[in-house]
């Protein structure tokens, strides 16, 4: 009797997981986790910080742009397109809107994936690591699957 209940539970679990994770929908949710890693550096010289120069090691720390854009690539284009404020930039007196938080760039919402963003600060002694997870909402996905696979009249 117990094993039969276990079977039912297993079957229900399998159906739920398959319903919740199969097929695709039309929008992606984002889940952002941030961690701050600040190294404790000892007293440094005035001009530079400990770790900037080490014997035999040249270290460079990333200085990413606040807002970076994307462009079409290739050598055969007669015209190139930028991705943000497409197709052409607005005149300077119109003003401009920047996305200053990279995990919320709209092009990440196009497909489910994971991504990581790093930012170095305090002359490279601190690093901010952001992990973003873009995924389809499971409950809404399951409801959508029920509609499109069972309830909808196929026409």
């Amino acid at each position, binding site marked *: 009797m117990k094993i039969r209940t*276990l079977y039912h539970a*297993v079957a229900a*679990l399998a159906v739920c997981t398959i319903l919740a994770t199969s097929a695709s929908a039309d929008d992606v949710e984002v889940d952002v986790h941030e961690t701050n890693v600040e190294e404790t550096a000892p007293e440094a010289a005035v001009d530079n910080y400990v770790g900037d120069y080490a014997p035999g090691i040249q270290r460079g720390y990333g200085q990413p742009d606040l807002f970076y854009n994307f462009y079409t*690539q290739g050598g055969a*284009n007669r015209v190139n397109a930028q991705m943000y404020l497409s*197709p052409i930039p607005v005149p300077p007196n119109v003003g401009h809107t920047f996305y200053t938080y990279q995990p919320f760039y709209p092009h990440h919402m196009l*497909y489910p*994936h994971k991504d990581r963003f790093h930012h170095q600060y305090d002359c490279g002694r601190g690093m901010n690591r952001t992990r973003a997870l873009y995924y389809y909402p499971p409950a809404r996905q399951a409801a959508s699957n029920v509609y499109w696979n069972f309830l909808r009249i196929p026409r």
Partner: protein
Amino acid sequence: MIHRIILAVGLVTASVAASQTSVTAGDPYGMAQVWSYNFSMNRPWHGNYYNQMHGQPLALIVPPTAHMRQTYSWGVGQNLMYPIHHQYGRSANSPGVAPRGGFHATPRWPSHTDQFGTYYVRGPW
């Protein structure tokens, strides 16, 4: 009894493993990515027509997981599929804006979907 427990545990494991298949590009070694990159290096992302609203060919961003585009024209034999090679990248290129007269206008009676001057470019990864 022990066989049934083993079977149940196996079923649970299989269901969990099957439910965790994430959506990927289906290109584990990046071969299609390399092909698309190589093709896009010596082919333009645009066609010969400009978009009527902007005077330039218009790049329509599609997900980077998109593979193919469909064109429609008069007649069954003109409905063709092409791969989408081009993808947005970080480095800016020139020329940014094409001079006037470099592209054709949409005909008064369009006969092909490429004549509307909107062309797909995949978004960055």
